[in-house]
């Protein structure tokens, strides 16, 4: 057993506490099926699909739930003739 290694390691419990606080805050807030980020995701995709045929493979949705802010990144490849197709 390498004791130096053991003592030099930072405590892991604070990380656990912080991760749980963020996660549970989000889970509790979303009593139903969707929290705000999920709702936004679905609505944004709905709006976009009104204007163009969405190719699921060309859409990337990323979320990162944070303590103070969450981020939602919707990355969509819009083909040049997308608008014409939908119309």
């Amino acid at each position, binding site marked *: 057993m390498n004791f130096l290694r053991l003592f030099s390691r930072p405590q892991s419990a604070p990380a656990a506490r912080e*991760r749980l606080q963020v996660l549970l805050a989000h889970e509790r807030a979303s009593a139903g099926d969707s929290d705000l980020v999920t709702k936004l995701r679905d609505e944004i995709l709905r709006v976009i699909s009104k204007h163009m045929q969405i190719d699921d*493979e060309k859409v990337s949705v990323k979320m990162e739930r944070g303590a103070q802010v969450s981020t939602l990144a919707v990355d969509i490849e819009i083909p040049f003739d997308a608008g014409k197709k939908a119309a």
Partner: protein
Amino acid sequence: MGKVIVVTSGKGGVGKTTSSAALGAALAQNGDKVAVVDFDVGLRNLDLIMGAERRVVYDLVNVIKGEAKLTQALIRDKRLETLYLLPASQTRDKDNLTPEGVEKVIAALKNAFDWVICDSPAGIERGATLAMRHADVAIVVTNPEVSSVRDSDRIIGLLDSKTLKAENGEQMEKHLLLTRYDPARAERGDMLKVDDVLEILSIPLLGIIPESMDVLRASNVGSPVTLADDRSAPAIAYFDAARRLKGESLPVTVPGEKRGFFGKIFGRKAA
């Protein structure tokens, strides 16, 4: 075509999720492309153990219901670019897992990955039988303790009857992963011996994972133990187990003992 592995046990809390994450990461650390799938619908935890809990966008049920493409639901690990997670749904119930849906998802994953690791929920109900249904290989996670061994025996029965392999008259490849093994208690004679568990369950031994604080630390920081501390005793045991999964024959060392298990255990085939 990838291999589908189910990590199962019957009993809860024996180390299935810990082992799914650690073995998945160990295989990916070796360069293999790995997808770890959480089948514990309603009580997902693999995302937390792998440190991806804040990045879940879609889940297995979304994919099955056609609400998201598989590629959108897979979360790539931040540390290992060949390791992916398909999270379970936290909010919906198990009925959303349909056999047809699961079959499609597994088939697609098999095409894209070297290994598809299915983390089974506890119990012997629908979730557990769906997780094992398409497996090529089963890892039976067992603690050296009476109720765990009994439940594992039950699960081995299901693996030999309720899986596609079994229904096609083929033999399911089964491996025993003995986890939470405590050398101090073994020394005192208060824990079932490795030989005893092997003799009772009579399936080959994939590895012995010692009870260790390193596992707790890894889960605190959201990292599979093989990534959190690759020189820790449980990490080394998981790395060895991953090599055996790939077909290498390495002797299994019993934690706290010098003795190595080898021909003896591997020679003993399931009935």
